[in-house]
């Protein structure tokens, strides 16, 4: 191949590498729900602050923490991070306690992994992390479709450090080509013996054995001094962690809105004359099509000629839902306003 052809091929391969980060909102720039939530750790965490970051705790733990999207100025190229700090320590760890942070990926976005075939590819996960002291934690990749997992340990520092871990290919267990959850990525930061009492095996796929999932890790809950910051999450097919792929905010927001949308503007079912007993309808289109028919939550409602109860909801689909409301009185200048969220998270 001539030098010109080699260069053309290289340029072509570089172009093909854009858009390969499978972790949505890796730079933690989008936080549609809230930028700070306190008192977490009681088992009802879920999706709390930074979009696509799922927080998983156990009801057994007495430990509590605050989750935040925090602005940062000490890591060039990044403006925000996912930030948790321990507010109630828990040094008496019951067997069933756990705490991990991570994301969940759709099977149809992972078919290029060729998992479960002889052509299966490795996966490399990289991210930046800074902690108040050195911790040893576990990064786990869990194949939900086939109940298999793989782990590696890493050690944090008090400075921003880019961690990069490559997980070997798995020729067992294909991932479903659908819109359901197929791969979970977990950063384990606290675990009781149910999840840590077994044997640690690094970088080896196997059927899930809970006792082997977080062996030998430190505990985020061992002091209220504990403070973890993370950003720049990147999940790539292959054995190399390429530089973090920065993305424009519009693209990231649109990707996040496949899973969650927070309608910050008011929607009006009816403005003007309303007749008592009459039903008034509004079909609300989503900003972007959602992964599945979402859960609808009304955040605020107000009106004239209508009660202040939530509107009725019907025809919830991936692209819209319909809200309707019966007027309770006849008013010339009647109206009903509402704001809402829709949730189609994995």
């Amino acid at each position, binding site marked *: 191949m001539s030098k010109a052809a080699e260069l053309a091929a290289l340029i072509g391969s570089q172009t093909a590498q854009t858009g390969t980060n499978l972790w949505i909102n890796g730079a933690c720039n989008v936080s549609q729900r809230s930028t700070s939530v306190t008192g977490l750790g009681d*088992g009802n965490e879920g999706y709390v602050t930074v979009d696509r970051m799922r927080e998983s705790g156990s009801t057994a733990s007495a430990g509590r923490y605050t989750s935040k999207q925090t602005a940062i100025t000490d890591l060039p190229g990044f403006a925000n991070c996912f930030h948790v700090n321990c507010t109630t320590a828990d040094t008496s760890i019951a067997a069933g306690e756990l705490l991990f942070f991570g994301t969940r990926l759709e099977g149809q976005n992972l078919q290029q992994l060729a998992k479960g075939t002889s052509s299966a590819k490795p996966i490399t996960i990289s991210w930046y992390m800074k902690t108040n002291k050195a911790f040893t934690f576990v990064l786990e990749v869990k194949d939900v479709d086939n109940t298999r997992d793989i782990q590696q340990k890493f050690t944090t520092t008090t400075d921003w450090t880019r961690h990069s871990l490559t997980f070997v290919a798995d020729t067992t267990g294909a991932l479903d080509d659908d819109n359901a959850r197929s791969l979970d990525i977990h950063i384990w930061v606290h675990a009781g013996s149910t999840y840590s009492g077994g044997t640690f095996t690094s970088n080896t796929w196997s059927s899930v054995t809970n006792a082997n999932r977080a062996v030998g890790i430190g505990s985020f809950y061992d002091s209220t001094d504990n403070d973890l910051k993370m950003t720049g999450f990147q999940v790539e097919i292959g054995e190399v962690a390429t530089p973090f792929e920065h993305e424009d905010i519009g693209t990231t927001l649109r990707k996040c809105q496949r899973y969650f949308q927070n309608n910050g503007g008011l929607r009006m079912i009816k403005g003007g004359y309303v007749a008592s007993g009459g039903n008034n309808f509004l079909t609300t289109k989503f900003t972007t099509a959602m992964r*599945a028919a*979402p*859960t*609808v939550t009304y955040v605020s409602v107000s009106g004239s000629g209508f009660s202040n109860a939530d509107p009725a*909801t019907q025809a*919830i689909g991936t692209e819209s839902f319909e809200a309707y409301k019966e007027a309770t009185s006849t008013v010339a200048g009647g109206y009903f306003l509402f704001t809402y969220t829709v*949730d*189609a998270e*994995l």
Partner: protein
Amino acid sequence: MNITSAQYYNDISDSQAGIKANIDGTEMSIPLDPANRHYAEILRQVAAGELTIADAD
């Protein structure tokens, strides 16, 4: 996910449209889509005998 109540609700034509549930202290309207995580959790809790879905009014 702490689900304290769940009740089917009907649409304007009186066909079953979804479930109204209180989850983690918030009232939600949940479609009958198995890919919806809240509906999936409701089904799991019903199967485990932890939750009953009330009939529509």
